C-alpha cells in the first residue's frame, strides 16, 4: 500500500477526514488484515501473534533461546483455562475432554507429523463421542475439526489433515447397509491407517528421492525437514558419497540441528550463514527442501528463506527438489507473499531493539511453482502442475 500509489498521501488525508469508524491507514498497516479469513472465526488461541505451529517445530528442534522459552511457558500456562471454552458444543453436558488438548499431546512427540496428530485427535473425538447416528457424529467431528483449524490458522498440514479426514468421513458415510458401530470402527481404523500411511510416506519419498543423488554431488539444504533427512539417510545407507551444505536457518537455527544429524550419519556437512547461499551456489548440484504445505498452484510454503534460495538456484540453473507428503497438499492459492495467513515468530537478535524499529517476524514464505523443478511425494515424483490435478481429483 505504501509503495503502490503516488496518491497514498491523498488517500490518507481522505481517510483522516472520514469518520472514526474507518480504520486509519497506520493501524491498517500494523494489524494483520482480518479479511484474509473467509469467515470470521473465533480464534480461541490467546496469543494471536505467535504461530503455534512454528513454536512446536522449534521445540522439536530443541534449539531454543531462553526468553523464547519463557514466552512459550506463558503460552502453555494461558492455554489451559481457555481450552474449556473450546470444548465441543454437541452435547449439553460440558465434556472434560478437549480436542485441542488431545492434539497438543500428540503434537509434542517430535517424530509425529502435524497432520497425523490432527487425525489422531479427531479419532479420539470419535472414540469419546456419545453420538448415536452417523449424522450426529459427523457434525461433532466437523465442530472439532473447525476448532482445531481455528486454533492454529497458520498450520497448513493441520488444516490439510483435518480436511482429508473429514472428506473421507463425508464421502463414505452414505453407506446404507452399514450400521453405526461398524461405521465408527471403520473411521477409527482409517485414522490409524493414516498414521501408518504418513510414516510409510516418508520411506517412499526417501526411496524416490535418493535416486536423484549421485556420487560426488553437493546438496544444499534449507530448514529442518524430517523427510529430507530421511532421503539423505537412505542415500548415505546406500553408500553414496555426497556432501551437504546447510544454511543456518535463523531464527530457528535449524541448520545447526540438521548438521548435527548429518554428522551422526558421517556425511560431510558444511554450515553456511543464510547470506552465503548465492556465494556457494555455484558449487551446489541440487537443492533439497521440505514443505510446510504445497499449494494449488504447485508452489510451496516453507520456512522463511526458501524463496530466496529457489530464486538464486533458478538463476544459476540448479534444480530445486521439494520433498513433501501428499497430505500436505492444500487448497490455497497465494498470489504473492502477503496473500497467506500471517504466521509470526519472535526473533531474538541478542541485543535489545528500540521499540520504534519494526521487525519482520513472518516465519514462512511462498515459493511460486516456476522456481521448483520436481516434487517428491508418496504419489510419485511430480511436476508442480500435477499438484492441482491431484487436488481436483481428491476434493472435487
Amino acid at each position, binding site marked *: *500500500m505504501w509503495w*503502490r*500509489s*503516488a*496518491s497514498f498521501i491523498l488517500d490518507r488525508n481522505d481517510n483522516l477526514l472520514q469518520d472514526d469508524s*474507518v480504520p486509519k491507514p497506520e493501524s*491498517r498497516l500494523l494489524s494483520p*488484515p482480518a*479479511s*484474509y479469513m*473467509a469467515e470470521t472465526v473465533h480464534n480461541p488461541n490467546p496469543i494471536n501473534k505467535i504461530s503455534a505451529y512454528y513454536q512446536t517445530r522449534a521445540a522439536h528442534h530443541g534449539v531454543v533461546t531462553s526468553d523464547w522459552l519463557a514466552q512459550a511457558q506463558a503460552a502453555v500456562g494461558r492455554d489451559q483455562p481457555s481450552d474449556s471454552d473450546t470444548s465441543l458444543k454437541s452435547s449439553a453436558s460440558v465434556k472434560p475432554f478437549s480436542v485441542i488438548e488431545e492434539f497438543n499431546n500428540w503434537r509434542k512427540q517430535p517424530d509425529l507429523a502435524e497432520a497425523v496428530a490432527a487425525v489422531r485427535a479427531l479419532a479420539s473425538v470419535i472414540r469419546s463421542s456419545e453420538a448415536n447416528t452417523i449424522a450426529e457424529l459427523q457434525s461433532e467431528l466437523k465442530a472439532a475439526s473447525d476448532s482445531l483449524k481455528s486454533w492454529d490458522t497458520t498450520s497448513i498440514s493441520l488444516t490439510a489433515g483435518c480436511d482429508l479426514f473429514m472428506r473421507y468421513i463425508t464421502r463414505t458415510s452414505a453407506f446404507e447397509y452399514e450400521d453405526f458401530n461398524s461405521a465408527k470402527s471403520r473411521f477409527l481404523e482409517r485414522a490409524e491407517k493414516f498414521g501408518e500411511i504418513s510414516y510409510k510416506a516418508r520411506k517412499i519419498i526417501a526411496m524416490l528421492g535418493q535416486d536423484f543423488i549421485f556420487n560426488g554431488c553437493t546438496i544444499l539444504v534449507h530448514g529442518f525437514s524430517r523427510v529430507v533427512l530421511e532421503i539423505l539417510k537412505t542415500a548415505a545407507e546406500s553408500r553414496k558419497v555426497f556432501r551437504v551444505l546447510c544454511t543456518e536457518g535463523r531464527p530457528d537455527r535449524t541448520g545447526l540441528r540438521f548438521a548435527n544429524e548429518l554428522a551422526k550419519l558421517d556425511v560431510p556437512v558444511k554450515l553456511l550463514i543464510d547470506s552465503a547461499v548465492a556465494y556457494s551456489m555455484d558449487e551446489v548440484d541440487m537443492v533439497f527442501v521440505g514443505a510446510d504445505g504445497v499449494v*494449488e*498452484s*504447485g508452489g510451496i510454503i516453507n520456512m522463511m528463506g526458501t524463496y530466496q534460495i529457489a530464486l538464486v538456484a533458478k538463476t544459476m540453473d540448479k534444480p530445486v527438489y521439494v520433498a513433501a507428503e501428499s497430505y500436505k497438499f492444500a*487448497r490455497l*492459492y497465494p*498470489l*504473492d507473499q502477503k*496473500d497467506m495467513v500471517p504466521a509470526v515468530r519472535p526473533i531474538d537478535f541478542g541485543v535489545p531493539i528500540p521499540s520504534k524499529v519494526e521487525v519482520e517476524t513472518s516465519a514462512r514464505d511462498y515459493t511460486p*511453482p516456476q522456481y521448483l523443478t520436481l516434487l517428491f511425494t508418496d504419489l510419485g515424483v511430480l511436476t508442480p*502442475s500435477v499438484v*492441482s*490435478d491431484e487436488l*481436483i*481429483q481428491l476434493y*472435487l
Partner: protein
Amino acid sequence: MIPPARHASDNLSRAVGMAVPTVSQLRVHPPVDSLQAGSYALSDSVFSASPTRSPSSRIGIDGEFSEDSANWIKRDNSGRLTAAVPTGVPDLTQSIEASNNENNGEVVGGPPQKNSKLLKAKTTKAERRALQEAQRAAKASAKAPEQTSKPEKQANQKKYVSQLASSSVVHEKKGGDKPLEKDRKKDMPPPRMQFDNKSWVEKAKKRSVVKQTEARNRVEIFRHLPQYERGNQLSDLGSSFFQMGDMHPAVYKVGLQFLAGDIMWSNTRCISMLQAFQKVIEDYSTPPERTTLARDLTAKINASVSFLNECRPLSISMGNAIRFLKARITKLTLAQTESEAKTSLCSDIDNYIQAKIVLADKQIVIHAVTKICDGDVILTYGSSSLIEMIILRAHELRRQFRVVIVDSRPNLEGQQLLRKLVEKGLSCTYTHINAVSYVMHEATKIFLGAASVLSNGTVYSTVGTACIAMVAHAYHVPVLVCCESYKFHERVQLDSICSNELGDPDVIAKVPGRTNNCLDDWASKENLQLLNLAYDVTPADYVSTIVTEYGMIPPTSVPVIVREFGREHVLI
C-alpha cells in the same frame, strides 16, 4: 516394404469402411515395388512445380490408371496403408494442397519447400509412398475430364483442413476419405470454414439465409475469416422475415439481435440462444414421415445454428452449449413419448443455464472475493458481468479498495462498468488502454473476464486483454481470470490470427465527437485496410490463476477440469 496388416485395416476401416481384401488385391500389383524405389525422388518434384512434371518411372504406372474415381480411392487407400502415422506427414498434405488448390498454389509453394527440406530426413518409406500416391492421384484428377469432382474433393479436403484451427497449410491428411465424405457432407456447412477458399465461399453463399456482401478492402492476413459489409444486412433480413419458412421466429429474433449488436456478451448470447432453442423444442412436433424425433430435431437445430452463425459467428461458449444440447437429444430413447421428450429437453436446458451459468457465477464470486483485501487497487479491462458482480460483492462486504477501469475503442465497454460502480459508491479511476503501463505500477491485482479458456491454459478474450496481461506480468502484478467452466474448450490456439472474429471496420474510422474524420473515405484508398478484431489470445504464462466455480486453478489444470467435468458429466 509391403505395409503391415495392422495399419491397413486400421486406416481402411477408419477411413472408408472398405473390405480388407482390397489390400491384398493391391499388394499383388507389380508396380507397387517400383514405386518405392522412385518415391524419394518424387517428393522433390512435387514442391518444385505442378504435378504434371513427373519422372519417367511413373508414366508406366499412370498408364494403368483409369480415370475412374473409384480406382482413385483404392490407389489412395494403398497410399494410406503405408502412411504408418498419418498425422506425421505434413509435407504430403502440402503436396496435395499445392497440386490441387488452384487458388493459392503459388502462395503455398513457398513454405512447403522449406518444410519439406526439414522434414525430408524424417519421412519414412511409408510416408514417401503415401506422398507419391497422392501425387499420382492429383495428377489423375488433374487429367480427369470430370472437373466437377475436383472442387468437391478440394472442398472435402478443406473441410478436414478446417477442422483444425489453423490457417496455415499444415494439416492432417485423410485423403482417402475425400470422395465418400463429399457425398455425405456436401449439404452440411463446414464447421470451421476457411473463407479464403473461393469455391467454399460460393457454396456457403448458396446455402446462406443472410445475404452478405464481402467487405471491400480485406486484410490479407485475415482472409480466412469472414469479412462482410455492414449496414444492409439488418434491413435485408428484416424484410425477408416472411420468407423464412422453417426458421422459428424465436431463433430469427435472436439472430437479428445478434446482428444488430443488441446482445453482446458471451453469457447473454448463450442464454438467449438456449432460450430460443427451448421455444423451438416446445413448438416442435415430429413430422409424420419415417424420421425420429431425435434426428429431425437435430436437423432443425443445425439449421438454426447455421443461421445464427451467419448473423454473428458463434462464440465458444455457445458451441459448447449446442454440443450439450445435441448430446441430450441423442440420448432420448424411443420409449419416451414426444411430449415427455420435449419437456425433459426443456428442463435439461433450464438446468444447464442454472447450473453452468447462474450458479457457477455465484460460486465464482464467492471464490474471487476472498482475494480482494483492504487496500487493494483492482484493475479491470472492459466490461465483464462476472467481474462486476465480484467487485460489487466485495464492496458489500465492506472491503476498502479502489478500482481502475481500463477501456478501449471502439466499443468503449468500460463506461458501462464505470457507471454502475460509481453509482454504488466505489472510487474508480478510468483510463484508456494506451495508458496501461502508466497506471500499472499502482495496481495490486488484475481481474479479467474471458470468452473462453483453451486447453493449454491460453485465455481467449476481448481484444486488448493480452496487452493488459503482458504489462501486468512485466510489473509482477498477479492476473486473475474469472471464467465459468462451461466455456473451457479442448482445443489449443497459439496465436490470435488463426481463429478470430472481425468486426466492422467503419467503427474504427469514425471517432465520436469529431466532425471531420480523415478516414472517412478509407475504402477508396487501395493501400489502406482497417482491421477491427474482436478477440485475442493471452498465453498461460501471463495468467496467475483461473477462478472457476470449482475453485482457483492454475492455467495448466484446464484440461483436468475438461476431463473430469467434461460434457459427459454434464448433468449436475
